């Protein structure tokens, strides 16, 4: 067995996300968003990052607000239940970040191309749209067999994928259950993978169910114990979505000044998941607990 990859959040981010990295995160769309890791990017004052993802919800807006971002390659940046991401708007309107406009399908195909080790993937989407104007990773091609007009999507191989999961062992083998979005291809396509996990478990727990593993451990660079690391987004089996967190963030991010206050309180003053939970308060944490349970029918992986 190899050496342990267990690191603190700050060490994992310091080591595997240097300035100017291409970072893919928020790969399961509304679920499993790695907010704790995203906040660490802000705390460490990362600069010139390229953020890659499908819809991102408010995570990308926060990292933009933290001044860490040079470019975004994504399909959507905003606040799913309230609309605009205000830091993102200010940054694009002010010309301080570059944008590569994707759709959910093109960003998935870009990462699938990366995951499969090919320089592009074909799709039938976005033809006739202006995505071709603001995304040089898209080109119109003809099918060599049928002559059909297709969109070619150039591969993306991020420097690092940051993925939140339910549980992982210290060697990088991680279980995720729920909707998976573009997580599988993001892990496969990235040079490094940082796993943040609700729980660190023994390898026996992971090998008891190898179909739930999202990417093989040898491709993972760091494993971080990050309970509540996806709050306010939901994690199947652990906690529900905290809608109020998203609604409050909308108000907090309306101006640069109010965002600075938000960042001081919810990011810069937080140094551990205990800090974060204290800030959240017991009552709010309790409200997010699961009240209905479904435990899967057993299966057997024996011989």
């Amino acid at each position, binding site marked *: 067995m190899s050496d342990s990859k267990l690191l603190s959040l700050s060490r994992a981010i310091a080591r595997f996300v240097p300035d100017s990295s291409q970072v893919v995160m928020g790969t399961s*769309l509304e679920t499993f968003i790695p907010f704790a890791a995203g906040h660490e990017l802000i705390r460490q004052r990362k600069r010139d990052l390229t953020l890659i993802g499908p819809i991102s919800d408010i995570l990308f807006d926060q990292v933009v607000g933290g001044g860490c971002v040079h470019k975004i390659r994504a399909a*959507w940046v*905003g606040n799913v239940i309230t609309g605009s991401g205000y830091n993102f708007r200010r940054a694009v*309107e002010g010309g301080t970040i570059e944008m590569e406009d994707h759709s959910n399908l093109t960003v998935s195909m870009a990462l699938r191309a990366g995951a499969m080790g090919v320089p592009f993937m074909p799709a039938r989407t976005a*033809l006739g*749209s*202006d995505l071709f104007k603001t995304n040089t990773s898209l080109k119109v091609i003809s099918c060599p067999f049928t002559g059909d007009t297709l969109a070619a999507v150039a591969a993306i191989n991020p420097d690092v994928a940051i993925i939140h999961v339910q549980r992982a062992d210290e060697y990088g083998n991680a279980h995720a259950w729920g909707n998976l*979005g573009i997580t599988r291809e993001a892990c496969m396509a990235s040079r490094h993978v940082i796993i943040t996990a609700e729980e660190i478990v023994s390898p026996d727990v992971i090998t008891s169910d190898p179909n739930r593993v999202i990417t093989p451990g040898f491709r993972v660079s760091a494993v971080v114990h990050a309970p509540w690391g996806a709050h306010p*987004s939901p994690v199947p089996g652990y906690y529900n979505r905290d809608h109020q967190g998203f609604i409050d963030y909308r108000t907090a991010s309306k101006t640069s000044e109010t965002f600075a206050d938000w960042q001081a309180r919810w990011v810069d003053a937080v140094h551990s998941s205990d800090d974060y939970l204290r800030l959240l308060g017991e009552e709010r944490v309790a409200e997010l607990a699961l009240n209905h349970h479904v435990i899967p029918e057993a299966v057997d992986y024996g011989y």
Partner: protein
Amino acid sequence: MGIKNKGYTLPQLMVTAAAREIADNEVIFVGMRLPMLSFFLAKSTHAPNAVGVYELGIVRDTVAPEGILTMGDLPNLFRAQWLADTADAMGLLQQGFVDASFIGGAQVDRFGNLNTSYIGSVENVDTRLPGSGGACDLASLGKRHIIIMAHQKHRFVPRVDYITSPGYGEGPGWRQQMGLTGGGPSAVITTLGVLHFDPDTCEMTLTSVHPGVTVDEVLENTGWPLQIAAELSQTPEPTDAELSMLRRFDPKGYWTGA
């Protein structure tokens, strides 16, 4: 807007009108916000066998057991039929297995092109909007899609500033010419009425106005000379049964409150 004190809200009327665009047994690619409620309403009334596909990698043929605000809320994963990858959902769409979907927008034009990206120009951005998400894919690949949006003159423009989600482009034949294999917008549900697309000209045409709304009001809020259907009707009001369903799906009125 003329529907005050009628016992329902404007969003409830719009959700109900949108739900009526879904037929039983159809496969629906379910988008966020009002479209999600429309799908739930259709499933619970006239389309019990409709199947919902969600871009984050969910297929389910039942309604979530509790009111939800995003498609990723855990009740929407609970006893789903399939939890998988975004690419799996998109594969169903791109293969042509999706009958209909719903898309919102900030700008729409007479040919149903939608903009949710840039107001102004790309070089000189007035307002940056969130972007496509899956909308461009739905507009490109579904058999048809239904647009839901506010009916205001600055939104209903002769030509959108940026095509995020292709409609009929510049008119008949454009989609084929671009390589889009089918589909296109079939209806627009607005805050003032319902519009459909003329099969010959691909132009948006007003087919019903909401209770209390006049045709002039619609024309004033549309940025081009709008076509009016010969048989213009009034949008049917939500029934009590529909309203009580909607209150179950949106118990706090987050989406459909007054």
